[in-house]
């Protein structure tokens, strides 16, 4: 077996992998390898041919392939090595990875650090255990997007979409433009789980109904989907008897959630967060294994690629610090907790002694939509460190804020983030 040696191996050549590799390069890492399982760089952005990418990072509106191209071009200007069509099979505890491709066969890479950037996958029909028959024509919205945008084929002529996740909304519009009758989007929750702008631009503008608090109770069809039974659901998300309705269609697309792809991470033994389904990290995106970093959708599912890029740059910079010997030797952990109205907060802890950054940047998602609230950040002495006011919050949109490090003292051992109602003034 071939044996290679690098300073840094980045697993995944999507937006997270590309940005983290570039940032590591800018910060002085010499030998970097990106392993990408597809035959091209850019990851899932390649099939996201719609626009709306880059508004916050580049201050202009790009399509997915254009956004990816900016980073691919940058990588090509550097001496970062890229192995395409390469699947990493295992990360070993002694800082080696095992990978395979057509050209090299099985090979081992010794490395000083690894950045996990494998992205996520879509939740399936099986995971939801939707009852009924098992015909062709039930697929995830992302698989449909692949067929239409990369392969040039349309999966069906009459489509029902379950789940108001962003890919589903995007596909509702994409398929409508191809002449498909998208009959409606069903969302089991009482609110849309995707971005507001996607609901407006992809459904409302095309007269596609969004049925909130609705689900599919049965799939019909022997060979190919012939229809679905839909029903309204109660507060416990259970179908309400008597509200069932048969809807004929030949395709059911699922856009019911994304799950970080952490098979390698789990096998390696990283500590995982039950909610994000990604590894637990500090503000530098270091996992509990000091040479393993994570960023992008493998860490937690992002709404905007711009946020992925920012997070990847944090990981890339930190990996560079480790590799070039600039990492703080000592660490004082501050745990981050939150109340039950918040789904998760990332990072899950941070280093009080980190003197390289002026702020700690937090990413969080609320559990339920709300209006006129504030995020209250307290330390372990119950002292309010800061308030972050928000007029509208919803689970589909990630919230970010910066905690100035001057608020963290030598006595800070934890901070807690909670949601409070903004008092009317």
């Amino acid at each position: 077996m071939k044996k290679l040696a690098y300073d840094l191996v980045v697993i995944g050549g999507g937006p997270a992998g590309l940005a983290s590799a570039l940032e590591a390069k800018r910060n002085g890492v010499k030998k970097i390898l990106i392993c990408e399982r597809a035959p091209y760089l850019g990851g899932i952005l390649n099939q996201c041919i719609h626009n709306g990418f880059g508004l916050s990072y580049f201050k202009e509106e790009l399509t997915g392939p254009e956004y990816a191209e900016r980073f691919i071009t940058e990588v090509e200007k550097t001496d970062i090595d890229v192995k395409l069509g390469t699947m990493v099979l295992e990360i070993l505890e002694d800082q080696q990875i095992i990978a395979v491709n057509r050209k090299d066969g099985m090979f081992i890479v010794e490395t000083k650090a690894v950045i996990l950037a494998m992205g996520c996958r879509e939740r399936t029909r099986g995971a939801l255990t939707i009852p009924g028959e098992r015909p062709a024509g039930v697929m995830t919205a992302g698989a449909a997007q692949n067929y239409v945008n990369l392969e040039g084929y349309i999966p069906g002529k009459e489509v029902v979409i379950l789940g108001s996740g962003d890919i589903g909304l995007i596909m509702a519009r994409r398929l409508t433009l191809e002449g498909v009758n998208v009959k409606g989007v069903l969302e089991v929750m009482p609110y849309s789980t995707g971005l507001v702008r996607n609901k407006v631009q992809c459904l409302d503008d095309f007269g596609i109904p969004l049925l909130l608090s609705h689900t599919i109770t049965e799939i019909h069809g022997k060979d190919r989907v012939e229809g679905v039974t839909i029903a309204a659901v109660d507060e416990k998300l259970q179908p309400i008897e008597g509200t069932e309705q048969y809807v004929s269609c030949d395709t059911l697309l699922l856009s019911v959630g994304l799950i970080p792809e952490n098979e390698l991470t789990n096998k390696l033994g990283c500590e995982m967060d039950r909610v994000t389904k990604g590894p637990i990290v500090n503000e530098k995106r270091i996992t509990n294994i000091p040479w393993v970093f994570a960023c992008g959708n493998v860490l937690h599912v992002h709404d905007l690629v711009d946020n992925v890029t920012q997070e990847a740059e944090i990981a890339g910079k930190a990996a560079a610090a480790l590799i070039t010997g600039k990492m703080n030797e000592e660490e004082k952990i501050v745990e981050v907790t939150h109340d039950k109205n918040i789904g998760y907060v990332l990072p899950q802890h941070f280093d009080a002694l980190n003197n390289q950054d002026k702020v700690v940047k937090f990413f969080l998602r609320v559990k339920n939509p709300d209006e006129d609230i504030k995020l209250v950040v307290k330390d372990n002495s119950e002292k309010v460190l800061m308030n972050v006011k928000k007029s509208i919050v919803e689970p589909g949109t990630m919230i970010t804020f910066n905690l100035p490090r001057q608020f963290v003292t030598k006595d800070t051992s934890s901070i807690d983030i909670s949601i409070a109602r903004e008092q009317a003034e």
Partner: protein
Amino acid sequence: MKTDVLIIGGGVIGASIAHQLAKYNMDIILVEKASDVCMGTSKANSAMIHSGFNIKGDTLKGKLALESNKVIKQLCDDLSVGYIKPLGSITVGFEESDLERMKGTLENGIKNGIKGMKLLNQKELHEMEPNLNPEAKYGLYEPETGIINPFEFTVALAENAVINGAKVILGTEVLDVIVEDKKVKGVKTNNGDIEAKVIINAAGLYADKIAGMVEAVDFEIKPRKGEYFLYDKKWRSVLNHPIYSAPTKVSKGMIIVPTVDGNLLAGSNAETIDDTTDLATSSIALNGIYGNTISHLFPQLPRMGDVITTFAGLRAASTNEDFIIEPAKTVAGFINVAGIQSPGLTSAPAIATMVEGLVREADHDLDFAPRTNYEKGRQAPVVLADLPYEERTALIEKNPDFGEIVCRCESISKGEIKKAIHRPIPATNIDAVKRRVRAGMGRCQGGFCGPKVLDILSEELNISPLEVTQKGDKSFVLASRNKELSLEEGDRNYEKISI
């Protein structure tokens, strides 16, 4: 077309019979109406090799299951089929009345010659299965139960038959049996007539229909539906043995059992239905299985989320509840192999041997001399994930397709998929590929690899992507090329859902 023996049905029973008869110097044709072998009852069941401890030994099915247990290991070795035995099993009880039934099962097992069975007290039970619901009180341990991959087993049997000269013709449905002078002459199919000296009816759920083409029959196949949960591999370690819930009067009990590939299978209920094509799962049944059995035995197993899929299978139960393996009563040369419900998968080898005896009686002119150049095995498919790294490297050097991972969840290469498409029993659709090499059987359920497998099928079979199916027949995956739909003439329905 002409043959000595015609077998109707490409399930595990038809394939076993073809495999058995292919040892002899005769022509064999197996016809199967579906696009692949193993498409009916054989495809969706508990995948267990029942030791026979909980089956009545004086029934035909009991007798054949016990006989099969003696030969199945060697058979699997010969055919390079993954088979795990013994795993043993534990029957779990919560109530005093469960214990009484378990005592009866113990007695039955001893009578059937199963050694090493014993009742477990609560402490012993939880030592052997630490994750079991703490309230479980009684256990019955039995050491001989095994597990198998039913697709692999059926495909291997059929492939071996083909290697030894049998013809397996897929997509061919028997429409009528031709009888002349009280003797079978052949069959009419959607692909033309086939003449045969002996016809074996191994049509599973349709065995009564096929038998009825020959004479008036006194049995009926009553499909009995069972629904299952297939769990993510990460739950494999929740148990050490296949677990039976305590038996009831009508059932051996529900099971939670590991699969050969390391998933966990849980089910199944038993609902008699009329429609032999009804494979729909229902929320009532799934909730029942989960609520009454799965969560009762292992409360940590989730209702959804880590579920890979749920599915239903139909047991081809006959009205008299035992196997019916006998010649037709009024027509010579016709043999019924019907009512093969559980433990049919286990019993398949012994059924095939028994059928051989009936074929010998049915036609004394058939040549039962051993086939020259008989092969008892088949070329084992390459399973990259099972090979040491150095061997994989050598394989990839010879054939780079083995270095291209297509299914990331199960680490299946393009090479393995291409080989499956060109084996003696070819995989010609997405699910057929999945059953052979597991591409699409993992966590993403083909979300990522589906489009790639479709591409490979289109390329290898030299058909348009629009012609590739999920599971044969009209189960096309794609509807049209981009742009073509918007140019289609005529009125199309643009009605939206309204409530």
